[in-house]
């Protein structure tokens, strides 16, 4: 075959593809819709599946600390060791130091006083029901039970620790339904100036998957041999459990939806190819080889698959983002890495659903089809 003729046959090939799409706009549109919908569903579900662990993980971080570091009896965290702890975590979590002391009121009632970074504690424990956070020195956050004991009318009160008194006022109360209700919280600075004690407990909320938390736990145990590092199993096991079940549900839903969409594409395209057996018969009667017809149909299917995958991918990203915004108040970040999967899936499904009926048609003589048998 010489150059120009080959060129014109390629041009003819594309003209046939274009004309086939133009002439049967309705049919092409229906097939494209089915494909785009399937691709959109697959994209949206894959996006959600990849992102949901992070999104739900953030929700689970509201449960508070998942690792607790406690110094051995008689020891405490010096500012240096706290800094070391912070550098191990390195932004992958929240470290909140707590110091504890048992103080006495004027009427010799024992009460637990905790010193902490109040701003960090607020971030760590969003479930604390706090009427007002202390904003300055000399103000305390009193647990609802402790408040009734130390300052029933909200008046200023005095506490004594080993003979050293401190004068405090209640800035607000905290209610949690747990041990915090019986404590009085001070800023770490006030606490240290008064008692001279360093923090002994660091509550850490590590971000990430249960595996990340597990890894961080081991790192901390290695780097802080002088302290007692343990996971809050109640929180970590609960999270792993619920997250795992949610992901399994999501995965099976994804499989269901993608399979249905793919099968509907199959039904649509198979119908289309069967419907066009006359065209193929005429092409064959005019001398087209089986290979050419195959190439023609495959080209058509490929173009359809690419167009459908691109359209569907864009729509799917939009759907995932919408679901993320409505449900998690934060957009699901688009995962462009799933595009190849969606594209390859679309091409496979279209090729399968067009070439399969074509094979069946090849066994039939053109004359029979043209006669309408």
């Amino acid at each position: 075959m010489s150059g120009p003729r080959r060129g014109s046959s390629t041009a003819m090939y594309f003209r046939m593809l274009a004309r086939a799409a133009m002439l049967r706009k309705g049919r092409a549109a229906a097939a494209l819709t089915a494909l785009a919908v399937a691709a959109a569903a697959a994209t949206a579900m894959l996006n959600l599946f990849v992102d949901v662990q992070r999104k739900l993980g953030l929700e689970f971080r509201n449960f508070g600390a998942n690792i607790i570091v406690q110094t051995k009896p008689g020891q405490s965290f010096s500012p240096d060791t706290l800094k070391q702890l912070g550098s191990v975590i390195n932004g992958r979590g929240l470290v909140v130091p707590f110091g504890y002391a048992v103080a006495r009121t004027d009427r010799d009632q024992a009460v637990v006083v905790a010193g902490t970074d109040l701003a960090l504690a607020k971030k760590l424990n969003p479930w604390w029901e706090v009427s007002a956070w202390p904003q300055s020195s000399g103000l305390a956050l009193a647990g609802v039970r402790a408040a009734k004991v130390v300052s029933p009318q909200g008046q200023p009160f005095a506490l004594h620790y080993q003979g050293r008194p401190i004068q405090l006022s209640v800035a607000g109360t905290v209610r949690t339904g747990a041990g915090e209700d019986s404590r009085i919280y001070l800023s770490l600075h006030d606490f240290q100036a008064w008692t001279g004690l360093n923090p002994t407990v660091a509550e850490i909320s590590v971000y990430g998957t249960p595996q990340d938390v597990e890894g961080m736990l081991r790192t901390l145990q290695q780097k802080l041999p002088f302290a007692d590092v343990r996971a809050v199993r109640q929180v970590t096991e609960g999270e792993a459990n619920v997250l795992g079940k949610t992901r399994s549900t999501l995965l099976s839903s994804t499989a269901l939806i993608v399979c249905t969409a793919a099968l509907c594409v199959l039904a649509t395209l198979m119908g289309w190819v069967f419907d066009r057996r006359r065209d193929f018969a005429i092409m064959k009667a005019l001398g087209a080889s089986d290979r050419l017809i195959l190439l023609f149909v495959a080209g058509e299917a490929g173009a359809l698959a690419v167009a459908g995958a691109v359209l569907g991918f864009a729509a799917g990203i939009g759907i995932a983002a919408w679901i993320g915004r409505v449900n998690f108040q934060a957009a699901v970040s688009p995962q462009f890495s799933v595009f190849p999967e969606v594209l390859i899936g679309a091409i496979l499904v279209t090729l399968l659903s067009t070439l399969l009926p074509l094979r069946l048609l090849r066994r039939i003589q053109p004359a029979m089809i043209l006669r309408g048998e």
Partner: protein
Amino acid sequence: MFVRLVYESFRRQTRRKLLVAIAITLGAAVSTAMIGIALGIGDKISRELRTYGANIVVTPEEDSLDVQIGSVNLKPAGGAYLDEAALPRIQGIFWRNNIAAFTPELPVNVQANDREVSLLGTYFEKPLKFGNQAFTTGARRAFPWWKVQGAWPADDSQEVLAGEKLAAQLGLQPGSEIAINGARHPVSGILSTGGAEDEQLVAPLSLAQSLSGKPGAFRRVLVSAITKPEDDFARRNPDTLSPADRDRWYCSPYPQSIAYQLQEAIPHSRAEQIRQIAQNEGKVLSRVEGLMLLITLAALLTSGLAVSAAMATAMFERRTEVGLMKALGAGHLPLSLIFITESALLACGGGLIGFSFGAVLTQKLGRAIFGSEITVQPVLLPVILGIAIAVTFAGSAVAIRRAVKYDPVPALRGEG
């Protein structure tokens, strides 16, 4: 004649009809399964959330302050207690079926091998009876993250569990003995919880009561209840509501209303939600439910569009048939009726098969993921059939309208 036309159309075009029917069946099955999962997941996840343990705590009304740092309890003996005899009444409250488990607690400071440690008295797996209703409750059910190396003590025994850190310090093994306030007690196992219990002894409640000299008393009871996420209505004070609203509040499984009922069941008590668990599980639950709901919407839309596309394709194929019928004098109305009847039959058949298939699928999925079946309510059947019919009509409507408007001549020549 009409019936015969429809019948013959099904008989002679089996392949085409089958393709469309498969599409509808699949769409209906997936819709059923997704709606079933979306409706059932709240219940399943709230049961899974019980892994977090108790979300409500009941304490004496006039309680003194807890003076506890970590595992060390500095609270002087005395203070208020609750009565163990009132505990079975928890199974008599309105939302008794939502109580997954509860555990009473009685902390006692004891001398163990000449060291002062805290001993926690509780139920492990205690059979109780309320009226003629028998049930079992205790720490093994309420705290699934408690792991015991060795054996759990029986609730009426003198055995104790030793927290793993305490056991390491005192050199205890499962089967060894420990002196508590001078008397020897067998250590049945080593307990690991990741919490304060790791440095304590944990014993049956009856043993703690005899050690503290307080028969029939406990300090607080932790209740693990299956609740509904709280909303603005839940936070209202029941005493200020109108009688109708109050009934509605009382009969919703909010943490607040369950706490209120527990307070009624146990005399001189105060019940409160443990906010760390109760608040956060509500949030997680509504997120997961919301997610599944939106995905279900997306799934319905997807299968709807896909079925519509398959239906439209099937209709386009029948131009010649329409042309022939028109050439033989068929009017617009009977023509449309034929196609509408065919679509409706397909939709009903596919919808019905799809529904049963989807219901089985939902059950299987529930069993595989959550270990218990998710039942699809039969009420869903008309909904699914309605959706199937609507979607099939939507898919064929455009095609039918176009078909009816065909000029028979080009259609018959195959030029449509």
